[in-house]
């Protein structure tokens, strides 16, 4: 069951702590997380509400600062980066997919996807071929000139995925990407993400509460109470077998519904 985690390290988190609030009323959300993600991995982060999975993602994705501990992405210590450097880092190295798409309503699908490279020195021809390649994989080429309000949720999320991939980031962070989608759109999106992960070698870290979604991952990390509770590697297992394993861990862990009373 345990697979050796070899390969080049993309993300390395050491003893990450995150505390909200002031001294007297401090709320410890992350209580020392150690996590290593290697190139080409598709990591799922699961856990009941309040376990700190979204906080962990925000901290790893440089959207939030750690209280203590270090996070290295591509060898750079992101907790040492400030404002402009941090923005540039996010722009060049990271990709994001949000639960509610966060597309710009005023831009077309193509304009939205090309946005991250708008400030890079990439030539228009290169950008165009890059766009074509990604749009083909995501099956949204035909929607290029449509506006977000004209397309479905699944199409919006695939557009968002395109936006997260266009600049060839070192790592893509996805926060509940299927949260707002129906099951058909969700599995179609996950299939595409799996394909991108395998074909283009994109590293993905995805937070989800949905066992179906995490069954597409190569590894699933379970959080509980601000700590890593356990990990599952998919290995050569079928998606269905992996799904059952995930369910087993979740039963022990206590699912969302158990947690939310």
């Amino acid at each position, binding site marked *: 069951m345990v697979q050796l985690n070899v390969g080049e390290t993309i993300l390395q988190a050491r003893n990450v702590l995150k505390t909200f609030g002031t001294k007297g009323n401090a709320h410890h959300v992350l209580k020392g997380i150690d996590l290593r993600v290697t190139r080409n991995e598709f990591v799922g982060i699961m856990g009941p509400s309040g376990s700190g999975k979204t906080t962990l993602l925000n901290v790893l994705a440089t959207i939030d600062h750690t209280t203590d501990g270090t996070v290295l992405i591509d060898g750079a210590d992101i907790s040492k980066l400030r404002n402009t450097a941090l923005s540039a880092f996010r722009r060049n190295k990271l990709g994001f997919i949000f639960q509610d798409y*966060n597309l710009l309503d005023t831009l077309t699908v193509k304009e939205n996807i*090309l*946005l991250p490279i708008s400030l890079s020195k990439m030539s228009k021809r290169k950008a165009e071929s890059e766009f074509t390649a990604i749009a083909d994989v995501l099956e949204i080429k035909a929607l290029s000139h449509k506006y977000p309000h004209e397309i479905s949720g699944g199409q919006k999320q695939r557009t968002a995925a395109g936006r997260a991939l266009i600049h060839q980031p070192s790592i893509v962070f996805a926060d509940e990407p299927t949260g707002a989608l129906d099951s058909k759109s969700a599995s179609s999106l996950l299939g595409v993400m799996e394909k991108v992960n395998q074909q283009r070698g994109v590293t993905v870290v995805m937070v989800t509460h949905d066992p179906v979604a995490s069954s597409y991952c190569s590894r699933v990390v379970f959080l509980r109470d601000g700590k890593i509770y356990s990990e599952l590697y998919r290995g050569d297992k079928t998606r269905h077998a992996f799904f059952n394993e995930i369910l087993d861990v979740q039963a022990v862990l206590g699912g969302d519904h158990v947690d939310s009373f």
Partner: protein
Amino acid sequence: MLTVFELALRSMRQNVKHYYLYFFALIFSMSLYFVFTSLQHDQAVQNMTHPSVDFSTGFQIAGVMLIVIVGIFTVSANGIFLRRRSREIGLYQLIGLTKGWVARYLMIENILLGLGALFAAIIFGALISRLFVLILLNLLGLEGIVDISFSVPAAFKTLMVYLLIIVITSIQMMLKVYRSTLLNLFQADKRPDLTRPPKAMTSSIFALLGLALIGYGYELSGHINERLFLNSLLVLGSIVAGTYLLFRVTIRWCFYRFRKRKDGHLGLTNSLSMAPLMHHMKANANSLTLITVLSVMAITLISMAYSFYYSVEQETRRDLPYDFMFENEPQEALSFKVELEKEGIDVNHHVAQAVLTMGIILDPNDESRKIEESLLWLPAEQLKQTGADLNVPPDGETILYNAGASLAGDLDEQSKRYPTRIKLEQHGQTVMYTLRTLKERNIMNLNAPGKQMLVSEATMDKIAEQMAGTHGYKKIRFDTFQVPDKEELAIASSLYNAKYVSDERLTYDFYTQYKEVLQTTGLLIFIAAFLGLVFLISTGSILYFKQMTEAEQEKQSFKTLRQLGFDVNMIMKGIIRKQAIVFLLPLSIGMLHSIFAIKAASFMIRSDTTLPASIAMTIYTVIYLVFALFTIGYYRNIVKNAMS
């Protein structure tokens, strides 16, 4: 359990930061209305001014214009507020409150806000009316202190304006609540106005039509005074329609072409400027047209008023080159001189001997025109001694001086009649003289008889010899006085007015005339400046509100962009470009319109309006750009805090 009333109060407290500029603009214009109506009803200042200055009509017209602008302003601002609160209005209905309840709730809030503005305006107005009177007196060139008491009729009229505003905005609110569906309310800011590509043919036709209409308006404004009323209406109509088409079709068409050519590679800056502008193009077209038209009115009004005020002395000098003039009254002139000297006033006294005859100025373009009129032949050599700036014409030639020429029609058109000939008839014989050209000023005071013809002394003597004894022939002695010192001139003027003015003949002295015109134009600039300020604040505020609302709608976009790794300065670059378009487009088009409007209206002023108009435009631009800076500041705040 909250009552509607309590909810309205609570919502007002929450919305107060969005309302404060609206509140300020409303208070400012309403207190100005209060001050204007107070002045209209006040006798104290009126009694100090020259009776010919129509004080109360001036303020009455200004009051009406204020009501109009306050109306436009509140309707626009209210429309923007309602649009931004669409979701809230929808939510109340979603939780089961009736449309009637929602309308009532909005109206209570509106009435309370308005009441606050009303009381603030009256109190503020009463407090600042004294300051306004001081400014007014200063502009009118009057001295002294006037106490202005609280005017009950003005307060009452202000109350009526308030009620009018409440009625209009309440109707607007009811329409919004009753006429929009829940879906509309929830998607008010999601759905773009115009994303479909404009149809190539119709678009280009309308785009060109917009430009053509503006061009036609400009062309027509060049000869507006031919049929003043009709042409003014035509110019106004074509310019407004053209401007609307320009914003609605032409600019959109250009944007669309540009965006299409980019084929998705829009870039961050354009994504944050052009894209949101196109997203709201329909609403933007309306407000930009409104703002442009209001700006044109304000700029033209201020520029013209300032040009009038600025050129009073110059204009009066054109009519009255001499401070005092006596016509065939040597005794009076002498006694006036003695009196002045007794007062220790420095005075330059000169005598000019002129000749008045009848004659016909021929029109080379119209042979049938043979009107006999009085011609006053003035000797250049003698006038030169008074210090007048003129050249002695060659013998047998003359120059016509007429300060009022441009009032009779287009000067360029008139100058085509010159050079021409003058026919003098003496006892059956005719003599011809050459009329070289026309100059737009007087060389003798306005009240001298006949058309003022400048000739050499020798020519005048010859005419006197030839015409002596004919019908209308007269020798005139002019005694002219110049008082170089301004303060002495004021004393001299009062001496003149005390003794040498009679009802039987026209008498003008420079100083009295100057003061009178100064008071009329001073009143004009006072009214125009404050009206212009209200126009400016209203248009600036409308733009500010609109941008504020858009900034809030775009908050999520900014957050997303920040998360994607665009820093504040990169995003601000796009926002600044958007603000540059939003503010500079109406300003520059408005400026261009105003330049033509001022040119068209400048037939009323003989002096050059370039300098005063440029000063007025510069001040307008500076204040206007302050609003742009405010807006950019507001955006920066939102972008900066987007991540938290």
